């Protein structure tokens, strides 16, 4: 099962130009910066500046509904889609998410206000807890809303799916998109993942998990089309069985770990294959 990659997009602590990011990673040029949270359990992070969504949104007020991960996903998706001229009614869309815990700590103040004599009080929740509860929180934290924002902003209505499941979710979304295109469910599919572990509760969570990598953030996207599509940058093949063993992605030391987008970035920069079980192998074309 094989498809062509005809567009890519990325948003990383080292920027958005693939060749530049790859060169900086190859040189081992660190893009890490100090964690800005006072008393952070993690001293340095791989942070993305911005991104500025102004000019990318169909309605400016939509920005307030974007979670950090959604903000990190839209620009690379736009770059990957490029000037694709097909029918977006049929374009597929597959997204990987890693949203555990359920929010980035935005509900902490409301929850803390609900503790009365060491117990959770619904009376307190109905009072000061409710006042502190961010009313838009459910609209930012449902796992499928990253996909929804991309669909809305880019007018995509084809086959779709959101894969959740930790760091492997990005690869799971890539496999779904690859299969959808290869089997003719859609003429092309936009596939991507984004993640952020550099703020608030995610940083604490990172420390609690005992993760040794530096936490990072970013987004990666691919446009997949049938194998004979013109302008292919590479082909991707779905292969049964686990990928050959390889070391940790080299970008983690200089950009940080991009969570569920990490393996997609690895595939885009250096890897020949990613994934366990059915894995994805890249067959470079031209200057890939």
């Amino acid at each position, binding site marked *: 099962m094989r498809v062509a990659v005809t567009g890519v997009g990325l948003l990383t602590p080292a920027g958005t130009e693939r060749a530049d990011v790859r060169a900086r990673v190859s040189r081992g040029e660190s893009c890490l910066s100090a964690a800005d949270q006072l008393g952070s359990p993690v001293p340095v992070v791989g942070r993305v500046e911005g991104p500025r969504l102004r000019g990318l949104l169909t309605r400016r007020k939509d920005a307030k509904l974007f979670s950090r991960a959604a903000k990190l996903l839209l620009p690379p998706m736009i770059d990957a889609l490029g000037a694709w001229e097909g029918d977006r009614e049929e374009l597929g869309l597959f997204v990987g998410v890693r949203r555990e815990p359920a929010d980035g700590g935005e509900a902490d103040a409301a929850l803390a206000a609900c503790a009365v004599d060491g117990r959770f009080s619904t009376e307190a929740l109905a009072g000061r807890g409710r006042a502190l509860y961010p009313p838009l929180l459910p609209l930012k934290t449902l796992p*499928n809303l990253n996909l929804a924002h991309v*669909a809305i902003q880019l007018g995509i209505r084809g086959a*779709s799916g959101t894969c959740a*499941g930790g760091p492997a979710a990005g690869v799971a979304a890539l496999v779904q998109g690859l299969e959808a295109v290869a089997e003719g469910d859609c003429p092309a599919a936009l596939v991507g993942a984004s993640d952020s572990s550099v703020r608030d509760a995610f940083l604490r969570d990172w420390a609690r998990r005992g993760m040794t990598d530096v936490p990072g953030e970013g987004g990666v996207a691919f446009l997949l089309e049938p194998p004979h599509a013109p302008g292919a940058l590479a082909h991707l093949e779905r292969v049964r069985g686990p990928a050959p063993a390889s070391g940790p992605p080299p970008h983690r030391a200089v950009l940080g770990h991009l969570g569920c987008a990490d393996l997609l970035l690895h595939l885009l920069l250096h890897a020949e294959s990613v994934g366990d079980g059915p894995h994805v192998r890249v067959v470079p074309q031209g200057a890939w």
Partner: protein
Amino acid sequence: MKIVVTGMGMVTPVGDTVAATWASLLAARSGVGPIGRFDASTLPVRFAAEVAAQGDEDQAALKLRLARTALDEALAQSGALPYLSERIGVCLGSEAARPELSVIAQRLRSGTLPTLAEFERGAPRAPTELVARRLGASGPVSTVSTACTSSSQAVGEGVLRLRRCEVDAMVVGGVDALVDPMMVTGFSLLGALSTRNDDPQAASRPFDVSRDGFVLGEGAGMLVLEREDGARARGAVILAELRGWGCSCNAYRITDSPPDGRGAGQAMAAALADAGLAPTDIGYINAHGTSTPMNDPSETAGIHRAFGAAGSAVPVSSTKSMTGHLVAACGAVEAIISVLAVREGIVPPTINLDSPDPSCALRHVPHAPQEHRVEHALTNAFGFGGSNGSLVVSRYR
């Protein structure tokens, strides 16, 4: 190649098994009532469609128990699956669950945090991993989180994996348990829940002109899927065929459904095309029918877009009028209900449908079940954010 259902299990607010749930639906019995699990007297919404909790289990523990119970029932029906473990896969729809609220609140107050294990139990993938362990399945294992479409997509994913011969059996389904104070508060703030506190059993009233929101529910549904040849070779009882799957995005707004039903209609049309059926072949539509002012007319428009003239003739009901909205579990539970409708030739009703909204002009099945010979049924699931999924279930021949 036919993909068939050989086992089904579910726990819903109207029954702890498939048979008990079906009996309640045919008796037009509501599972909605005052919230009993915690003191909701000060909350703006004080009712829900709960399943019975055991002891002091928290949301995460309840989800795992519901998944385990539904799985065991499905496997008891399917019988042992004589396939290599790497040829059995699992795909479930699930959302994140919080650790016990008292624990979080107390620890936030004191500046500490719940343990990692507490969060891991609530991860969307936790029920999937439990099911895979219980099955001994080492094939493809994945979790879909597309809100209310989650388990519909999980069933669709299972169908695709079987068609590709990646596996010999798939356990698919979904589980959710969102009736906790924070979720009730969150959905209330969005204005998504019915506030009919004085008459909870009348609160979920899909397609009715006086509907005012959905009723939060909880439960689980699991199906065992196989290819026809494998099921027949091992002598399994085949319950129905899963014949078609389609999905789409609305690309409209985060909270609203498009009034023209565009995305919903596209998913239904895709499912019909995948099944190789015409709209006139469908004998029953199990609607998503949430009872929100926005969803029901949008779904109605979608049915008319996809079905054309046949959209006015096909019987339509929403079993959420009795079960409440099971969110990530609703797609799988309603797929099972559709299997039963096909097998039994009975269409369950939409209760509380006293005055159909003129903007929801369909052939409703109000108040009481109706007998219909149903060769093929279509079931819809639409998620917050505009993810749509439709499945076609067919009588097995």
